[in-house]
């Protein structure tokens, strides 16, 4: 099963999947566990020479993340403390983007409802279309588009003045 094809797939989607998993899970290690579980599960289900369905891959990671979240429910208090004290490590270091603005975007995203947040993450950073997002979340395409639109409007209001003009 050591198919080199999965390496290219992993390079293309791993960071996006990790960011998506972090919308539920408070720490990076748990999010990586969710990515691992979802990626392996979907890739094993593929026939030789076949590539996985992208919305299915995100849905599998989402399912793994929710399962991990349930299993960590008893440690919720500790995880809340982790979330409160976590460093803003959602984004890669980029000299063209201010770290302050990156942190501001993350803080604003964290204040959005999870439905709007995951729609925005899938649309903006995963590059999925609204039909693909609808397949991932199991909803209606128009509903997903409306969530994304409302979420972006709310995000714009939550961002500090200097961050609205340009990242």
């Amino acid at each position, binding site marked *: 099963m050591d198919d080199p094809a999965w390496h290219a797939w992993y390079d293309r989607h791993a960071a996006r999947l990790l960011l998506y998993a972090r919308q539920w899970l408070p720490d990076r290690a748990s999010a990586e566990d969710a990515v691992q579980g979802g990626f392996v599960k979907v890739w094993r289900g593929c026939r030789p020479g076949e590539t996985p369905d992208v919305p299915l891959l995100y849905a599998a990671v989402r399912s793994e993340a929710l399962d991990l979240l349930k299993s960590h429910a008893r440690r919720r208090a500790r995880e809340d403390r982790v979330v409160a004290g976590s460093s803003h490590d959602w984004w890669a270091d980029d000299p063209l983007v201010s770290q302050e603005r990156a942190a501001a975007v993350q803080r604003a995203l964290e204040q959005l409802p999870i439905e709007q947040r995951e729609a925005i993450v899938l649309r903006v950073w995963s590059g999925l279309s609204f039909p693909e997002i609808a397949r991932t979340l199991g909803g209606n395409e128009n509903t997903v588009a409306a969530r994304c639109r409302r979420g972006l*409007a709310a995000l714009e209001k939550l961002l500090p003045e200097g961050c609205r003009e340009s990242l």
Partner: protein
Amino acid sequence: MNRFEHDREEQEAEAAEGMILDLARLRPAAPSVALRERIAADLVAPLSRETTSAARSPTPAPRGLGWLAERMLWAAGGAIAAAVPLLLQPRPLPAGPLPADTNRPAVAVDQAEAVPRGAQSSDMPAAVPSAIAAAEPQVIAVEPQVVAVEPQGVAAQEPIAEESLAWSDDGVQFIDGQIPARVIRHWVLERFPGADGVGLVRPREDVFVVPVALR
């Protein structure tokens, strides 16, 4: 939908797309190198998922027969330790009245002497003196003498089964008016095989006379 609303939605969509492009300039952080290695290990060995996850998760490792044998050994030891005090505990004597089918003969019997059951009532001694009865008896002889009371008219043969009915402690009595002894009675139901195939049931009374010293 009128033209005004349509234009407004188009403007909102354009603004959203512009914001999406701005936000997309942020690139998600890459996962750790270990994640790729873990996925590779999982894809190579189908069962290695549990192995690699067990190293990080708090779930216990699979247990084998050695673990089971050790647990059973500890369980057996615990059961034995719990049963020993129960087995060493003396059997309590019944405090209530005796069964109806056994007339309790309140009589002192001589040591090592068989007393027919019907002849006991006339040999009842006087009550124990109160001064002595109040004293705490101390058992000095631990070899009780069993006095078998054979019911009359029954052939001497071995019973095939015995059923304990009741115990009785008559307290300290004076044998022959001199020797203090504790009298304990035990009623047993004996079962004998009958000649015509019908089993015979016969009650038996054992009297234990334990000499004691009073102080």
